[in-house]
């Protein structure tokens, strides 16, 4: 049996189990269907498989960085990677395993590496998006056509309605539902909701089709297409 056949068979059996477990009643003609009893064990087994995937990620990351270090390609980044890895592993493990018994400098080291380096760095990377959104919004929102004007108008209402200043700017408007927060909420709750529902239906039908293709081994993925090359 080729690896492809094994993968296809396991995929089919795994999908068949969850399909039957969901569709079949707990008892048929007085006989208990045992599938539900195996659900917890099977889920735990797949969690163990997931742990293997984390291990593989570690292996590939370390191998790639070691290769960079040895070959001299982008050596400074690799040195920084290994130093940071060693530091956070050391402080992290000692902080976790020793708890209150660890010396103060271990707690300080963990605080430094996790709360004062890692957390701000990740937050900063995502915060950079804010600057690009300002620049993109300024350049993209032009009233070239009626549709673009409508889009811009809706964006204005929702953007200002979602922040307190929108309510403050239109607090004087006597008709409540014309104030920005209420208008923005209506736009999100009615037209947006209808459009999102339509998109959701389309995506769900597409997901159903692709799931069936994967389950029945009709999908040609990267693994199968590179076999034999």
């Amino acid at each position: 049996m080729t690896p492809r056949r094994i993968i296809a068979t396991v995929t089919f059996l795994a999908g068949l189990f969850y399909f039957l477990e969901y569709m079949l009643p707990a008892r048929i003609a007085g006989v208990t269907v045992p599938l539900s009893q195996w659900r917890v064990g099977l889920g735990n087994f797949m969690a163990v498989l997931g742990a293997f995937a984390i291990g593989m990620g570690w292996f590939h990351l370390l191998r790639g960085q070691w290769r960079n270090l040895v070959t001299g390609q982008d050596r400074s980044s690799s040195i920084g990677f290994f130093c940071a890895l060693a530091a956070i592993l050391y402080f992290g493990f000692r902080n976790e395993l020793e708890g209150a018994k660890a010396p103060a400098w271990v707690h300080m080291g963990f605080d430094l590496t996790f709360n004062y380096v890692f957390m701000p760095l990740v937050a900063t990377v995502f915060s950079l998006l804010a600057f690009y959104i300002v620049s993109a919004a300024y350049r993209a929102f032009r009233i070239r056509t009626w549709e673009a004007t409508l889009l811009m108008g809706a964006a204005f209402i929702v953007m200002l309605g979602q922040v307190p200043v929108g309510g403050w700017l239109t607090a004087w408007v006597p008709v409540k539902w014309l104030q920005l927060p209420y208008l923005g909420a209506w736009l999100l709750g009615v037209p947006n909701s209808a459009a999102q529902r339509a998109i959701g239906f389309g995506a769900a039908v597409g997901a159903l089709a692709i799931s069936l293709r994967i389950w029945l081994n009709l999908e040609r993925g990267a693994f199968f297409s590179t076999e034999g090359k």
Partner: protein
Amino acid sequence: MAHRENTNQGFWQRAQTIDRRYLFVLLVVAVALPSFVRISIPVHVFDDTMGVYRSIEGVARANTGKRYRKMVLVMCDWGPGSKGENWPQTESVIHHMLRRGVPFMIMGIDTVGPTLAEGMAERIAPRYGRRYGIDWVSFGFRYFGDPQLLSFVKDIPGFVQRDIHGTPVAKLPVMAGIHDMSDVPLLIDVAAGPEVDRWIRLAQPTYRFKAAFGATAVMAPAYYPYLDSGQLSGLLVGMRGGAEYEELLGAPGQATQGMTLQSMAHLLVAALVILGNIGYVVGRRARR
């Protein structure tokens, strides 16, 4: 006259093509301004945030006088990248549950979110005399695909087995009477991605629990249909949701301050868009 008209057209042409470095500086100034000038704008509480508040109040009322209290599951599926939005949401709901004595369990598919939520609970719990293991518990990061979700909802103690400190579930008083998802009337999923979809799709039809979602502002518009259908009882939208919840709790914090900064940023974007469009219209008329 012709020279003045040319100068005006040059100005409006430049208004459409401001170097983005100036835009970045303007954004920094707009966001930093409230630090120097005291600006306080009242926060309006939307119905979607109110829905989350009422859901927790409902659990608190249902638990009154009961021997075995039902729990709330708080899934912290967020990390430092969405900290600005998800941190205040998580902190607010944890604060509310600790104040009202609603027992809850913390879990997450992100490695950082549950750790941060534990820190929040440890900081807030002493104010109300709540204790770990009796009023709340954390199961930390769990690898949680669809099969694991199906296992968890069917047999919660069997799936989690131990908490983050290694204590068996059977020795945790807060987990007494908790067997499956029917003992968890409310799920609050605070996430940077579409995690709540799986709960609604796979578990809610069987176990009929209420679900509330703490979403980033980018994700939130996709979840209004779930509010309409009742599959979500409440929705916290970005930092605004956190600020509104702080308003409901009477405990203004990080999100309330952040909304002032966000207001300045949104005003700046609005002003720049107006400026660019005036320049566009003037330029178009001049070309005709």
